[in-house]
């Protein structure tokens, strides 16, 4: 039995996890901090974020305006006290990253430049070309090298959280290099494992975005919040499984066109047009396609994103990654040809319930969550472009600081051998059946696309739920072909599929129960928002037979819900 012990253990090394580690390390040199990743830190999914990060930085903007756009974008499901805190904390994060070496794009005078993304009233988005997430990740990783009390555990795959008497005690993880199950004893765990986009087939998410932290917490008794709200980013690259084509393309002036060459957004958001929030643009694209105004292609239906009028220089300077990806994956140079796009699963608005008392705190003592894995909630039913990176920085820092305070007051848990042995036994019995995890995953992806897409409806969803239950049943007889120790990705893949099945079920049943349309959750049978019955957060608790649901009121401070028009 491999045993490791740290005051604070962080799972996930994207922006939220690394920011949390740095915050905790800055709080105290004496705390030992473990940073666990199933990849290497810079291989995290945060590197895929492109367009930028929102901040009210200059005189033309205000915290109030940023908060209002966020709340309106959320379709009034965001908790307004959390949003108000959030917008105020971002400027320092942006400037700190500047001091830590982030290559922010600059205006002529050398100041940090800003552009516009959908649903914002002003140029609020700071960026580093269209590789914003990538550069923030690398800056944080590089900065993290300066703290000797941060120890990285690369390529460790977490299989369970150990919770006793409502308190976190440790976790188990497979050391991928040698296949050994390792026990981490700890006073605090911070979940920073990102979203669950891979439950769908057509997605901008990396292969690793399998909702591990959400499923781990859910199984350990922490409720998941608002999971039915899955964000479809309007512009996924069609020939490449939904690779992200940044909203910055539209922020820099790109148009969406249907097959008649029409700028169809005028029908859906006459004022903001292409810069309406993502839920609205995604629905508009799907509506065009369903009504026969999209293009048909060998990789599925699509509309066009036209950047050709922006000119070669602007595309090369502001959107180099988009150009590279379009050329490499679709054989299309956006300088001279429009890009084929359709909505792609991009972000999980819901997540681990993380405001039990304080922000980032879950109901389990010593268990915190930050970033996409968490639901605080600042995004409500629809996240605005540019608010996710900001969320990871702000709440990563909050979680790191709170974890440091908490760890300072606690003593190290004692014997966890029983929990370890139990997990070892569970894993040894796992995978002795004859069902293929790869087939189950493929069928799950197809079911989510078909039954829980941009447009939802009761009968169709009921069929989807039936399918998910069938897949869960088959999964109990899953087979692991690879019996070797080192880098057994056959085993870790099968575990991930188990995580995804649990989460898909919560998404599905939560969606069926919510009888209204709000933000990214749109029901053809209930096309209106229903504030009198549904202005509330969904909570899903794990039980053996499937999720149990409960609801929580939304915190409203300043802004009463009004009709959402753009």
């Amino acid at each position, binding site marked *: 039995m491999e045993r490791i012990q740290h005051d604070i253990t962080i799972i996930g090394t994207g922006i939220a996890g690394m920011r949390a580690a740095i915050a905790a390390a800055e709080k105290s040199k004496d705390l030992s901090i473990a940073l666990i990743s199933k*990849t*290497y830190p*810079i*291989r995290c*999914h945060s*590197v*895929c974020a492109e367009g930028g990060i929102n901040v009210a930085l200059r005189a033309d903007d205000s915290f109030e305006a940023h908060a209002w756009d966020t709340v309106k974008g959320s379709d009034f499901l965001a908790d307004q006290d959390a949003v108000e805190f959030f917008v105020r904390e971002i400027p*320092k994060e942006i*400037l*700190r990253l*500047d*001091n*830590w*070496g982030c*290559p922010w*794009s*600059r205006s*002529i*005078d*050398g*100041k*940090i430049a800003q552009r516009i993304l959908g649903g914002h009233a002003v140029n609020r988005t700071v960026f580093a*070309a269209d*590789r914003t997430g*990538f*550069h923030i990740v690398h800056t944080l990783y*590089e*900065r993290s*090298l300066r703290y000797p009390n941060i120890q990285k555990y*690369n390529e460790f795959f977490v299989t369970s959280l150990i919770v006793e008497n409502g308190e976190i005690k440790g976790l188990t993880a497979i050391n991928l*290099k040698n296949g050994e199950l390792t026990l981490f004893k700890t006073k605090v765990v911070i979940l920073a494992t990102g979203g669950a986009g891979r439950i769908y087939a057509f997605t901008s998410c*990396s*292969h*690793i975005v399998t909702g591990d932290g959400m499923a781990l917490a859910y199984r350990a008794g922490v409720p998941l919040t608002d999971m039915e709200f899955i964000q479809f980013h309007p512009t996924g690259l069609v020939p*490449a*499984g939904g*690779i992200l084509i940044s909203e910055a393309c539209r922020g820099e002036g790109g148009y969406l066109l249907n097959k008649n060459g029409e700028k169809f957004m005028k029908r859906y958001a006459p004022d903001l047009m292409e810069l309406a929030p993502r839920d609205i643009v995604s629905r508009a694209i799907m509506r065009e396609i369903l009504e026969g105004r999209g293009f*048909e*292609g*060998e*990789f599925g239906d699509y509309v066009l994103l036209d950047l050709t009028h922006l000119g070669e220089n602007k595309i090369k300077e502001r959107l180099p*990654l988009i150009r*590279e*990806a379009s050329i*490499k*994956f679709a054989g299309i140079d956006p300088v001279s040809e429009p890009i084929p796009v359709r909505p792609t699963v991009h972000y999980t608005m819901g997540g681990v319930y993380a405001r039990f008392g304080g922000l980032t705190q879950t109901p389990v003592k010593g268990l915190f969550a930050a970033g996409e894995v968490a639901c605080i909630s600042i995004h409500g039913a629809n996240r605005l472009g540019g608010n996710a990176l900001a969320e990871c920085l702000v709440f990563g820092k909050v979680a790191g600081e709170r974890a440091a305070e908490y760890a300072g007051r606690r003593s190290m848990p004692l014997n966890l051998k029983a929990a370890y042995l139990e997990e070892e036994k569970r894993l040894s019995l796992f995978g002795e059946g004859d069902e*293929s995890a*790869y087939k189950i995953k*493929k069928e799950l992806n197809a079911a989510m696309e078909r039954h829980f897409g941009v447009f939802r409806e009761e009968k169709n969803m009921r069929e989807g739920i039936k399918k998910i239950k069938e897949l869960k049943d088959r999964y109990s007889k899953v087979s*692991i*072909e*690879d019996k*070797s*120790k*080192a*880098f*057994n*990705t*056959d085993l870790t*893949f099968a575990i991930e599929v188990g995580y995804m099945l649990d989460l898909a079920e919560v998404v599905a049943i939560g969606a069926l129960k919510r009888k209204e349309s709000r933000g990214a959750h749109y029901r053809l049978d209930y096309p209106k928002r229903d504030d009198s019955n549904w202005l509330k957060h969904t909570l899903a608790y794990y039980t053996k037979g499937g999720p149990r649901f409960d609801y929580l009121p939304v915190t409203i401070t300043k802004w009463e819900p009004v009709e959402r028009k753009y």
Partner: protein
Amino acid sequence: MVKEGKDVIFRIKRFDGEKSYWSDFVVPAQKGMTVLEGLFYIKATYDGSLSFRASCRMGICGSCAVKINDRPRLACETQILQLNSSKIKIEPLDNFKVLKDLVTEFEGFFAKHEAVKPYLIRKDESYAEPVELIQKPEELQVYYDFSFCIKCGACFSVCPAAATREDYLGPAAMAAAYRFNADSRDEGRYFRLATICSDGGVWRCHFAAECSEVCPKNIEPAKAIQKLRFQSAVYMINRAFKRW
């Protein structure tokens, strides 16, 4: 609609911890399908024990660099049909120890990156109330092209100096050092140059420039090394005269 395609044989070099061997698999390649998708197809269809790394599948996380038909490439960015061969040979990167199949040991590579102090060093390190630093677009351009190295290891795998000397820092670490030395916000150049001028440093480079040749992001580490050599020469003269 039917996609164009053809069957392609993937000939993959395997390693199970003890012995190496080759496995052949038939992949029904379609237009647009990448080598990485081919690997996933094999894993799901024929052999779940095949191990390889992958994450973003859009060329930015740096996980999936492998040798494809004798050249290091990102599997996710390489389209099968564009290779124009009926048989594709796939091997782990050279100059890295193989752990299993296509998975290689990267700890040493990252340790070398860390050794050059790849972070901004400033005299004032109090960031409680950070201030905006001014950097003109032309100052950004000086180092920006070196800042999007994805640490995939392709450069290191073809470097003749890395092949013969275990302590050689290698092209990616050098590019990182130059990226910070050339940043107008940085005040730590001399701390970095001490490492760069050390025995495993900049003078070991043979100038084969193969690193720049294979870099999937066109970073040109060889150019960074050339610029570092100039900085190093100045540094060593200054150090000799105790002027630093």
